[in-house]
């Protein structure tokens, strides 16, 4: 036999034997193939800290289902690969998880750039993808996808909740401090429109490149501009560095600061004053609502010895998103993507179930979870060291809906979306 022929036969044998071995093993054991969920969370880069919390939230939901016997009689396995807060890595990870690891679903997204990249790959294959924590309005607007569901409040929701009141209380002259990437751009765009609509004026906008560590020139420029309100759309490590420098110069007392959304991990462990200005969030661990105490206790029991002693909004989103996905699989009785998408579109979730103040729903047109938005500031009378937020008000989801998203969102039809099932 020729050597080339032999190699060809060996290659063909290996190609057949690989998948056969895997499936054959499950068949022999009389068990169903595990349901693999791909967790596309950042573990490094600008959103590494928040991504880690989000992943733990998803893991806790998966653990709960496994304790009940999994879904559809299948054990659930989680596969996590670090997306590094880098869109190119997000694409690569999603592609690999779908084509090589045969994941049934993808969950995870902190950076909107990464979430958008993952969403494109997911749509190509028809894999249902949950963007659990990224907040650019484009995620449920221009970049919406049939397979993608957005679980966090977005920049427009938060701006809707804050801007009008801030103009009334603090003044009409605004300066924008904007992280120079998709989330920052779109959040600032929404803020600018709302400022103008409510009779305010944007005197200037300073773009903050991602990776900025020194904010001294921005802070000097703000002093030259003399705005009444500074609306910052700066996230992750950039925000942490900025906060540190704002606190050092006491500029938090010089202007009114509006910090669109504040992730728990970005201020955790730094004392109440680190959460300066007014900001939005979707959940707080000290809500006096049914289920919150038990949820917090469960977090502590499941992940003992964690540096972050109490769960925050990113953990919460990771948890509720994963739990809802698995519920939909149970209800649909299948992992077929179209069946799951139909279960999710227009889905209603009670306030009690979600541990928020108002019922939530998934907009069938934009695929964004419409939920209660909370306004908060730093807590000057903390009941315990972690009690760093003082929740000022809550806004019902209907009052903060992004009106432009349905017009911008053009998603593929069911027929155009590839059928996918694992």
């Amino acid at each position, binding site marked *: 036999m020729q050597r080339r022929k032999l190699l060809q036969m060996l290659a063909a044998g290996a190609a057949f034997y690989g998948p056969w071995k895997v499936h054959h093993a499950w068949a022999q054991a009389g068990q169903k193939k595990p349901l693999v969920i791909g967790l596309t969370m950042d573990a490094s880069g600008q959103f590494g800290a928040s991504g880690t919390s989000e992943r733990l939230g998803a893991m806790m939901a998966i653990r709960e289902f496994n304790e009940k016997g999994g879904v559809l009689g299948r054990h659930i396995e989680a596969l996590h690969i670090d997306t590094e807060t880098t869109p190119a890595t997000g694409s690569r990870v999603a592609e690999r998880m779908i084509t090589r690891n045969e994941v049934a679903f993808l969950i995870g997204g902190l950076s909107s750039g990464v979430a958008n990249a993952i969403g494109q790959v997911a749509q190509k294959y028809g894999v249902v993808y949950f963007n659990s924590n990224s907040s650019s309005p484009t995620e449920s607007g221009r970049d919406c996808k049939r397979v993608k569901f957005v679980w966090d409040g977005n920049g427009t929701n938060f701006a809707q909740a804050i801007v009008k009141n801030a103009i009334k209380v603090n003044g009409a002259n605004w300066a924008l401090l904007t992280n120079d990437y998709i989330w920052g751009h779109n959040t600032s765009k929404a803020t600018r429109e709302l400022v103008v609509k409510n009779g305010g004026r944007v005197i200037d906008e300073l773009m903050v490149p991602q990776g900025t560590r020194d904010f*001294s*020139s921005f802070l000097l420029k703000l*002093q*030259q501009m003399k705005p009444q309100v500074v609306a910052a759309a700066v996230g992750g490590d950039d925000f942490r560095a900025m906060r540190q420098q704002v606190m050092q110069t006491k500029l938090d007392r010089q202007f009114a600061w509006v910090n669109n959304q504040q992730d728990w991990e970005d201020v955790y462990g730094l004392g109440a004053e680190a959460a300066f200005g007014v900001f939005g969030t979707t959940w707080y661990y000290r809500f006096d609502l049914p289920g919150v105490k038990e949820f917090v206790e469960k977090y502590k029991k499941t992940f003992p010895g964690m540096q972050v002693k109490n769960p925050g909004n990113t953990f919460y989103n990771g948890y509720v998103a994963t739990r809802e996905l698995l519920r939909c699989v149970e209800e649909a009785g299948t992992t077929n993507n179209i069946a799951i998408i139909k279960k999710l579109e227009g889905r209603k979730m009670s306030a009690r179930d979600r541990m928020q103040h108002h019922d939530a729903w998934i907009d069938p047109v934009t695929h964004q979870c419409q939920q209660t938005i909370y306004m908060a500031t730093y807590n000057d009378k903390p009941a315990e060291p972690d009690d760093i937020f003082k929740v000022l008000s809550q806004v019902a989801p209907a009052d903060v809906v992004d009106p432009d998203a349905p017009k911008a969102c053009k998603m593929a039809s069911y027929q155009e979306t590839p059928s996918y099932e694992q």
Partner: protein
Amino acid sequence: MVDLTPHLLNGISLGLMFALIALGFMLIVGVMEVINLAHGSLFALGAYFAVFIMGLNLGVGIEARYAAAFLLAPVGVALVGMGLEFAMRRTYGKDPLYGLLLTFGAALVIEELIRLIWGSGEKQLSLPPDLSGAMLIGGFIYAKYRLYAAAAAIGLIVLLWLFLEKTPYGAMIKAGAHDSEMVRALGINLTRLRLFVFALGTALAAVAGIVLAPIWGVRPHVGVDAVVPAFLIIVLGGVGSFWGAVIAGILVGIVVAVTGAYASEWSLMSMYLLLIALVTFRARGLFGKKTALEN
């Protein structure tokens, strides 16, 4: 000009901090011809050691703890640096890629060790009250700490310069950078000299980490933010040139600060554009020596 002045002054203070970051890197590249990619991780380790020392219950005030952290953390990092130099010995005289790969690997290991020991969350380096807070300069609110950091950078630059120029050991280091074989032929223990230079370079990285910690914050991957400007500054200043690194650092600080104020989206990119512009016309950097090909 009225508008520009505060940004120029801010740029100089920022530049001094950049120069401080680059000094240790420059020393190791200059003497040992090793690009130490672990410089950033050692920078981060210095900040973490300082946070650890500040957190110890020593029964003394915050000023004394800060002083202890400032002195002891660089010593701890220097010991780590010496360990790294031991590991590097087998790469001397071989393809430079080996040293590059080894220090890159060390950077990853140090960063992961930091994660394992201190966790991935943010840490804060407490400051004595006299160093924190704000002050008014020319009608602008400025952080007191930034002035302290700039002063600390000037002090360290001067001390290092005096050490290199005015002490016999400094003369040996400079000679080692110029012609290591000749230094060995003169009976100087080159192995010990290299060990000392590596320890000094890594201790300087730690000092920079401690000084920058209250401005940049303390995270396991904060070193990545330090190693890139350090590399850029020594190329810009001319590899091995002490004053080249200092002047390039100040130049980068001014460019970043001024673009931050007037074309903010270019503030990070500006340092790279500066490098491209300079290297295009002067490949050896500001104060780099001419190569044989240029003579």
